[in-house]
């Protein structure tokens, strides 16, 4: 991915030298044409065309913001309820992600989801131990949410 971006910037510079005009506007025009060239030659690269990956990163960012707001509403409800009748607990969740940065992002996302907080990660990086605020209604729903998170992260790293 980094290689494709560097190549695109390089092509934009070549465009600037061809036009003999050195301003940001020419750079962006060259960047756009470089983007078209990279898209045409995308099957010669090992990884995917990098714009798809940037779209996936932006999607992940919006998931982050949405979960942060939803989790705040959930915590607000628990705190302002007159009776303390939640059932907290710690459960284990297996994960398929391999690299350290993927697991870090997944753990951050889970910590910001409604009613869950990561306590520990097993030494072999295969299980996350999660403290849930309300374990009964949470577990199924949370597992499905997490599948979508894992998919979104894999979309970025694939």
């Amino acid at each position, binding site marked *: 991915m980094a290689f494709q971006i560097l190549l695109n910037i390089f092509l934009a510079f070549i465009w600037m030298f061809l036009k003999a005009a050195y301003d940001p506007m020419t750079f962006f025009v060259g960047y756009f044409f470089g983007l078209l060239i990279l898209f045409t030659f995308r099957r010669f690269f090992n990884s995917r065309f990098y714009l798809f990956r940037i779209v996936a990163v932006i999607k992940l960012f919006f998931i982050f913001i949405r979960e*942060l707001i939803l989790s*705040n509403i959930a*915590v*607000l409800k628990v*705190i*302002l309820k007159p009776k303390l009748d939640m*059932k907290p607990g710690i459960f284990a969740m297996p994960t398929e992600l391999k690299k350290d940065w993927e697991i870090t992002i997944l753990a951050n996302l889970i*910590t910001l989801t409604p009613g869950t907080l990561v306590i520990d990660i097993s030494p072999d990086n295969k299980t996350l131990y999660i403290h849930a*605020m309300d*374990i009964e209604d949470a577990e199924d729903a949370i597992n499905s949410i997490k599948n979508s998170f894992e998919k979104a992260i894999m979309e970025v790293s694939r």
Partner: protein
Amino acid sequence: MAGSLIVIGVFLSLIATFGVIRLPDVYTRNHAASKSATLGVMSVLLGTFLYFFLTEGHFNSRLILGIGFVFLTSPVAGHLLSRAAYYSGVKLWDKSVQDDLKEQKKKFSKR
């Protein structure tokens, strides 16, 4: 716009404080502290940024950086606090139902 963001942020921080007083054990308190405080501080900073940007036309990039840093670091801080609490033997609330981390902790302490 900017004012309402600041009011929301202050309200969320207040709720987080209530949560820390009211909830029964370390882990549930950590839920309140690490989530509501994050969004509270973030929206106060965003409100301040918008105030200076809209009324005085001053683009303060430090506030944006501050939002980014709080957003990245506070979930990690919550995780580390609760992990340290668990391994130094702080008990869960008595009404807690499930504890899958016990076996791993035993293994950890044997070594």
